[in-house]
């Protein structure tokens, strides 16, 4: 007899983990399938994790979650050939009991999250690739087939949390192939280094961290950004550009990364570090217009597979966790009401997304998947008002960006007469609404 679950979650990244945990916690019979050797084995993240979404799912996560450093300073740098202009925003207020953002090592977080799922009663099987969705005569998804022997498993609903490649949705005809201009390829390395050197070079103590977002000539005129993040005992450095640009350019991604590492401004920061891993991954950057069909009879799609990524703000894992949670909550509500998991009922998932920061933010930037490029003045050296704005801007807490903008606007209007330049910055922000 084929085994049957309330729900099957495909993938153990942040979206799948959020979904599986939320379901297991409510006592649902959930199976999570992951193709990696262990959760995280296939996953890549630059390494900033935003607390707000995880906190909604696991309120006391800080007790044992293996984060690296909490971020007290955000730098945005524009690199020239051998120089840079940049802005820093640093605040002691980020040194709170409940920091808002952390640098992380992705494999550590995924393993930790998976443990929580098992503790909550979820069943998780790794080293298993889902090869196909099983559908009944009416087309409703009723389970999955895996690459294990006798690997057919049924469920009332299947949540696809399988990341940017989203092979299953594409093969089933639920999604089109990714357009090269809607997806970036990023490469990154982890560089181990004496923590004392990190503290000296970045002016840090204890577990304080700095993150640097980088634009400029290092992407060789291509649409893309780079980053340098501080972990406890390592630095993470990476660069990513749109695949359409890579396709036209003649420079391989690893060469671009090497040039970044050798840039005269970057080199002294990473000097003496030892490279321990080289990774590559795609990032869905098409924004609102690239979001596919999100649900149907017996299925939902969450996270990167649903193209939930805010490239302008470099947010992905939080959208993944939020969408995973919302998909799970939809399942729980339907189950409690004794309603079937057909498309009409699963539309409640889309409603939740529309009402959340996920769709609001994606919609806000629908015409501008690369706001960072247009936004240089905004990160310029405006004092007081802008630092307050920046504080709000860089605080990721699931308040939608439009509400934040209104608050920032209010504070700007007060000072506009003395600070003409600030008006320009605001116009710029408005232009991208």
């Amino acid at each position, binding site marked *: 007899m084929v085994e049957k679950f309330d729900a099957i979650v495909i993938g153990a990244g942040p979206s799948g983990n959020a979904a599986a945990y939320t379901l297991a916690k409510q006592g649902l019979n959930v199976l999570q399938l992951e193709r990696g*050797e262990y959760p995280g*084995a296939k996953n890549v993240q630059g390494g900033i994790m935003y607390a707000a979404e995880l906190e909604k799912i696991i309120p006391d996560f800080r007790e044992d979650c293996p984060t690296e450093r909490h971020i007290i300073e955000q730098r945005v740098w524009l690199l020239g050939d051998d120089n840079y202009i940049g802005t820093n925003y640093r605040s002691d207020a980020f040194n709170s009991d409940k920091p808002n953002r952390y640098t992380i*090592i992705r494999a550590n977080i995924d393993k930790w999250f998976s443990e929580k799922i098992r503790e909550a009663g979820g069943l998780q099987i790794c080293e298993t690739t889902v090869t196909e969705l099983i559908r009944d005569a009416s087309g409703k998804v009723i389970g999955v087939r895996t690459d294990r022997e006798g690997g057919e498993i049924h469920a009332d609903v299947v949540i696809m949390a399988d990341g940017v490649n989203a*092979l299953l949705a594409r093969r089933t005809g639920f999604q089109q192939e990714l357009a*090269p201009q809607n997806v970036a390829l990023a490469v990154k390395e982890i560089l181990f280094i004496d923590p004392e050197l990190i503290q000296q070079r970045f002016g840090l103590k204890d577990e304080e961290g700095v993150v640097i977002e980088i634009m400029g000539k290092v992407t060789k005129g291509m649409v893309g950004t780079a980053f340098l993040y501080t972990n406890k005992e390592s630095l993470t450095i990476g660069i990513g550009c749109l695949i359409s640009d890579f396709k036209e350019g*003649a420079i391989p991604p690893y060469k671009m990364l090497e040039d970044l590492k*050798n840039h005269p401004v970057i080199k002294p920061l990473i000097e003496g570090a030892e*490279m321990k891993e080289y*990774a590559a991954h795609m990032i869905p950057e098409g924004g609102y217009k690239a979001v596919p069909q999100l649900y149907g009879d017996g299925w939902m799609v969450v996270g990167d597979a649903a193209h939930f990524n805010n490239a302008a703000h470099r947010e992905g894992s939080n959208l993944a966790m939020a969408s995973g949670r919302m998909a799970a909550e939809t399942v729980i509500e339907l189950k409690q009401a004794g309603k079937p998991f057909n498309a009409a009922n699963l539309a409640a998932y889309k409603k939740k997304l529309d009402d959340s920061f996920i769709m609001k933010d994606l919609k806000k930037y629908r015409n501008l998947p690369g706001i960072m490029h247009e936004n240089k003045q905004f990160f310029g050296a405006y004092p007081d008002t802008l630092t307050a704005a920046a504080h709000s801007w860089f605080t990721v807490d699931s308040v939608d960006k439009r509400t934040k903008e209104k608050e920032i606007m209010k504070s700007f209007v007060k000072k506009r007469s003395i600070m003409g330049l600030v008006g320009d910055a605001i116009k710029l922000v408005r232009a991208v609404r």
Partner: protein
Amino acid sequence: MSIVVKIEEKLYQNRYIVDESRPHIQIRNDAVCKSCESQACTVCCPAACYTKNETGSVTLATDGCLECGTCRVVCQDKENIQWDYPRGGYGISYKFG
């Protein structure tokens, strides 16, 4: 700036669980590669799995593959790459990610 990059040295740091003689990606038709002007896969692949060969076609070696999916995306107009994930448990196994 001209820096020589040895991709092998980068990949050497990674952990792979190789599925012997079961490549998860395949080039469908050699002739299509020959007639492809850009051969974008040879530039875009972050693991340099694709190389131009003497016959004017492309050679694929998947051992260093990072399973990113880029080659599939760049070749979608030609549809000449048959792309899949390795069997469960095999392939790249990131220690840090």
